[in-house]
């Protein structure tokens, strides 16, 4: 960058970067939100799935296959959600953000635990609490970025 001389009576001015090495500009809690929505969706599907009306090898195989696929997706997306949250927590958020958001660590800790809970349970309550925690993180994140980004769900 060239040194800018704007006026003979004004000192030349340059920009001095004090950024991190990582891609500061590409973090977005949307990744965690999408995974969290998938967890909630699979949880609802599991709770809504009825037993086969007629028990047979074929109907039980279809039922178990469907239920196990829901469970597998729920487990995978909950783990993905936890990963996305941990990346935001440890890489994007910095000590200076705690002044404005003293609840930051507690919110992330609780959100990560809810991911674990949603893996081992079929709990609509914990799935909703996870989404609430992700929304709180979304709000903190965009406040720090200085932008108004509404909380929008895909489903």
């Amino acid at each position, binding site marked *: *960058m060239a*040194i800018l001389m704007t006026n003979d009576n004004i*000192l*030349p*001015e*340059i*920009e*001095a*970067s*004090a*950024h*991190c*090495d*990582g891609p*500061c500009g590409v973090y977005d809690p949307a990744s965690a939100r999408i995974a969290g929505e998938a967890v909630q969706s699979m949880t609802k599907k599991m709770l809504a799935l009825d037993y086969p009306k007629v028990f047979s090898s074929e109907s039980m195989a279809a039922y178990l296959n469907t239920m196990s696929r829901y469970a597998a997706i729920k487990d995978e997306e909950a783990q993905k959600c936890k990963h996305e949250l941990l990346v935001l927590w*440890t*890489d994007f958020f*910095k*000590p*200076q953000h705690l002044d404005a958001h003293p609840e930051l660590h507690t919110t992330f800790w609780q959100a990560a635990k809810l991911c674990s809970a949603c893996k081992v349970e079929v709990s609509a309550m914990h799935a909703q609490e996870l989404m609430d925690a992700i929304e709180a993180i979304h709000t903190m994140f965009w406040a720090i970025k200085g932008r108004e980004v509404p909380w929008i769900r895909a489903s």
Partner: protein
Amino acid sequence: MARFIAVVSGDSMWPTYSEGDRLLCAELLESAVSVGSVVVFKHPFKTSLHLVKRVTSIEGAELFVEGDNTDPTSSEDSHNFGKIPTSSVLGIVIDKPNDV
């Protein structure tokens, strides 16, 4: 002696300096670099980029520079790109006046 203003972009020098702070700097001829000095220098691999960091050790004509932010992910500094030559230093921060 030549002086210039460095406008801080980023948080790696927090809490000492924050985004938008205007730092009064002096060229090396005026002030010798010592451990603890905050310097503005050319990035060793991106020469069009100027960085501001604190000198934490000196070995001959090479400086080890670090950000002040305690978060190890906050700063791209000598932990990433190694020591920098003294010749790459544009100036030393000598003040953070409010009116420059």
